[in-house]
């Protein structure tokens, strides 16, 4: 009896191995493109909306790994992904200058907004400037939820505190170490202020009692770029796929599709490469890989 059930167990095991082997065999590295991107592009739903088209038109399967910009850049540096879609201009420039990436291309932008409780205890509505607004938050010790994770949004936030000449610390300053969506939910639960990109905010607006208290500030401009991981550093990086993806992103048809991606009649991202309808790409940096 034992022998019979053992046989059954072995048969079942073989079946499972067969299943799993199938799954692993489907993982053909030639057609996989690994995209490290920020939580904002995924949480807002943009990638779910765009990528099926790319996968249909080109023979690639895109594996999206959504992390903060800092982590995404690190993955690119380590050669763990093929292409990046990130938003931290200064860090991106350093990344390319250090030779970790090539073909940095402006794709789109949106802007950051400061959201907070509608009662506005810090009085942001009375602030005279963005720096004043940040100072009001720290002066009134109003709770502020920070990403605290080296993301593009966090880098922007840090630069704003610096601008306001404030060292954010104390009980009111909450470093969450979470993605944008989670931070918005935390801020909603805690009646706190936070800095968010408009795209994620629009996607979460329905779930949050917070409202926008500071916006349309030139200092809150938020540009997104695509960068290919330098194939000279890692030979088997899917550079071809990365370039196909970048070129596809700046195609007029894709750019129009980005512009058409709306929530509550508001565009989440504004395409940046749409103006020139002829050129394939408006490359920010000139050092193209040959």
């Amino acid at each position, binding site marked *: 009896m034992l022998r019979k059930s053992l046989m059954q167990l072995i048969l079942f095991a073989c079946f499972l191995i067969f299943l799993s082997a199938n799954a692993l065999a489907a993982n053909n590295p030639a057609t996989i493109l690994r995209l490290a991107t920020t939580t904002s592009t995924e949480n807002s739903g943009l990638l779910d909306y765009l990528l099926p088209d790319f996968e249909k038109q080109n023979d690639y399967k895109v594996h999206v790994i959504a992390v903060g910009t800092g982590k995404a850049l690190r993955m690119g540096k380590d050669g763990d992904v093929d292409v990046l879609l990130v938003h931290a201009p200064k860090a991106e420039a350093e990344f390319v200058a250090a030779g970790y990436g090539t073909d940095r291309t402006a794709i789109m932008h949106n802007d950051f907004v400061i959201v907070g409780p509608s009662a506005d205890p810090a009085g942001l509505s009375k602030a005279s400037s963005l720096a004043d607004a940040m100072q009001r938050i720290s002066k009134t010790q109003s709770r502020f939820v920070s990403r605290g994770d080296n993301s593009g949004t966090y880098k922007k936030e840090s630069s704003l505190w610096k601008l306001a000449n404030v060292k954010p610390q104390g009980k009111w300053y909450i470093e969450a170490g979470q993605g944008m969506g989670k931070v918005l939910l935390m801020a909603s639960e805690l009646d706190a202020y936070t800095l968010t990109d408009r795209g994620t905010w629009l996607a979460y607006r*329905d779930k949050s009692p917070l409202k926008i208290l500071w916006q349309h500030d030139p200092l809150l401009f938020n540009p997104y770029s695509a960068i290919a991981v330098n194939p000279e550093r890692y030979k088997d990086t899917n550079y071809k796929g990365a370039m196909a993806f970048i070129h596809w992103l700046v195609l007029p048809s894709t750019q129009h599709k980005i512009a058409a991606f709306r929530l509550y009649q508001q565009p989440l991202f504004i395409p940046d490469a749409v103006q020139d309808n002829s050129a394939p790409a408006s490359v920010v940096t000139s050092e193209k890989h040959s």
Partner: protein
Amino acid sequence: MTDSSLLSSLLDALQLLLLGDGKLWSIILVSFKVSSLAMLVAALPAVICGFLLAYMRFPGRRLLISLFNTLLAVPAVVVGLTFYILLSRHGPLGDWKLLFTQTAMVLGQIALCFPIMVAMSHAAFQAIDLRAWETARTIGAGTVQAFMMIVSEARYAILGAFVAGFGRIIAEVGASMMLGGNILHYTRNIPTAIALETSKGELSQGIALGIVLVTLSFLLVSVLHYFQGRGQIQ
């Protein structure tokens, strides 16, 4: 905030499950596939390890037992981080290109379920009289045959070790998130999806997946009870 109440989340969740939401089922499938494979690879070696620790005398045996018991307490994120560093292209095993694949998740989960299965099967073998082994050997059973006899004696406790090992990896989020990267249709499993959906505020998706996990645990425990129950009758 339409989906904030637990009840409406629960109803939405049931609807998602019953209507066969493709995304949801692909996530469930990934969980099963990865964890089953990890179990398949780890189960037999773990039982053999437990057996050797219980029946063989060799230097460092007690230290090894302590080591496996200590490994039970290692957080999944630490296992994840260790494998991340190893498998990253920058790391020593970078040439294998395994980071952010199901294989990487399987490796992490093997590392997680192996110690618990060793420790528990070791305890199971300890409960069997050493004379059973000696008797089997004296009446002419080969090593493998005698081993199979002891295993069959301890099978209910070993089954319990398997369930505990499976329980640890099917519900584990840290290592899967780090090693798999939470890629939809590929490395997004039930726990990482729950983490993501919660962060997106999609509570009903999270609850639906939670229901699947709980149902799965219930089925596992029921199967164990079934086998154990039969063992008592005989």
